[in-house]
């Protein structure tokens, strides 16, 4: 484990990293849990601070870190805080297996290992001047939140910004307070829906794709960003294409069994790509052909 704090900018960013860089990329840094908060019954957010002093971490919206729960192993988790050069990392995690349940047990002051940031980012610069359509399903809102933070922090660079968010039930909505605050803004449109609800819920019911026709946007001048379960991304992407969004400006974030983070181990191979290195953010053009291939 690294003993000398360093900045994340020393990290190899993608393919072509030399051996020294690869070694660096495989070495976790110690970070300390500053805060833990439950988002839903099975989802929680960790705020992390570097265990050493003077560490500044730089990342772009859509990238992920490998979080190491000591004694259990590593798991890839998208960064869900505001992007840029930060001294605090935010990760929202769904506890679904051995490793993530291990992370769920961490408390303030506990240490964990962090490697990253890894992977490609949402192309925020290329989307300047466009309407932004952000479609999130379930925990998929977490990797999209840095994109939304970026858009709101640079609001004048974008046209209309709309967030469409679908969850399983009202109790499964992430960032509930923040969603309320976003809904109150005049420069952001937020539509939320759930798949199942009792009569006490007075919001939308139905899958997130049904919302897309409700907010008018200029499809020709739109960049769309989708993250959620793969089936949801498939249907949301097709609906956005039907509405006229060009496939080259439609982006999805893929998930596979990422382990090394730098395209060496091959566990996250998706056709001709490694998701950890060539993704997780892919253009629709690249990702869509893989959706229907069972062997991938």
């Amino acid at each position: 484990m690294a003993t000398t704090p360093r900045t994340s900018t020393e990290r190899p960013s993608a393919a072509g990293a030399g051996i020294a860089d690869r070694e660096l990329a495989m070495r976790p840094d110690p970070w300390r849990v500053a805060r833990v908060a439950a988002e839903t019954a099975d989802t929680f957010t960790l705020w992390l601070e570097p265990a050493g002093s003077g560490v500044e971490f730089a990342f772009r919206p859509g990238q992920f870190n490998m979080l190491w729960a000591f004694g259990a192993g590593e798991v890839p988790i998208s960064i869900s805080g505001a992007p840029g050069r930060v001294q605090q990392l935010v990760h929202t995690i769904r506890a679904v297996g051995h490793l993530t349940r291990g992370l769920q047990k961490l408390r303030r002051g506990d240490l964990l290992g962090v490697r990253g940031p890894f992977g490609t980012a949402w192309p925020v610069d290329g989307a300047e001047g466009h309407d932004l359509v952000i479609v999130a399903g379930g925990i998929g809102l977490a990797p999209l939140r840095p994109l939304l933070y970026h858009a709101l922090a640079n609001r004048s660079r974008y046209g209309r910004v709309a967030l469409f968010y679908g969850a399983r039930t009202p109790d499964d909505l992430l960032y509930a307070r923040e969603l309320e605050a976003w809904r109150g803004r005049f420069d952001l449109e937020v539509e939320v829906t759930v798949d199942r609800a009792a009569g006490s819920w007075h919001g939308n019911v139905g899958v997130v794709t049904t919302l897309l026709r409700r907010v008018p946007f200029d499809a020709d001048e739109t960049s769309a960003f989708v993250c959620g379960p793969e089936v949801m991304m498939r249907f949301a992407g097709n609906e956005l294409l039907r509405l006229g969004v060009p496939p080259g400006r439609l982006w999805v974030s893929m998930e596979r069994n990422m382990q090394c983070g730098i395209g060496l181990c091959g566990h996250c191979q998706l056709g001709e790509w490694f998701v950890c290195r060539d993704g997780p953010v892919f253009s629709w053009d690249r990702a869509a052909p893989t959706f229907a291939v069972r062997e991938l």
Partner: protein
Amino acid sequence: MQTLEPLIAGVALFKGMKQEHLALIAGCATNVRYEAGQFPGLAGSPADCFWIIRQGCMALEIHAPDRGTISIATMGDGEVVGFSWLVPPYQLRFDVHALTATRALLIDGRCLRGKLAQDHELAADLLGRFSTLAVQRLEALSLQLMDIYGDHATNID
């Protein structure tokens, strides 16, 4: 007298429809308004109309004695509520609940069925449009049934 034809022409479902067909549909339409909490339709009652929401939100609901009210789907501006007017036994399967104050076009189903029986070109056109809508709704319901955000939703660990 001002007719509802311009409003009908502005509905996405009827986009590109022949003027004479729009006029026929408008002849079966009335403007309605519901307060939040009102039930414009109740499960089991005759399905003698459908609604096109101009502004507001309506839910399809069903009441189960052991679970209370279950919301199946909600519809918003520009969306169509109700298919049962189209197929026998012309009976509503779900409660139609105005969740907010809602303005809508109410289309008289019996009136329109009569016109479809007389004008087969209109019938073919309208049934095609409703079929497309039905397929979209089925697709959405299939996704709901898949429970895509359930415990199987991630494979990261």
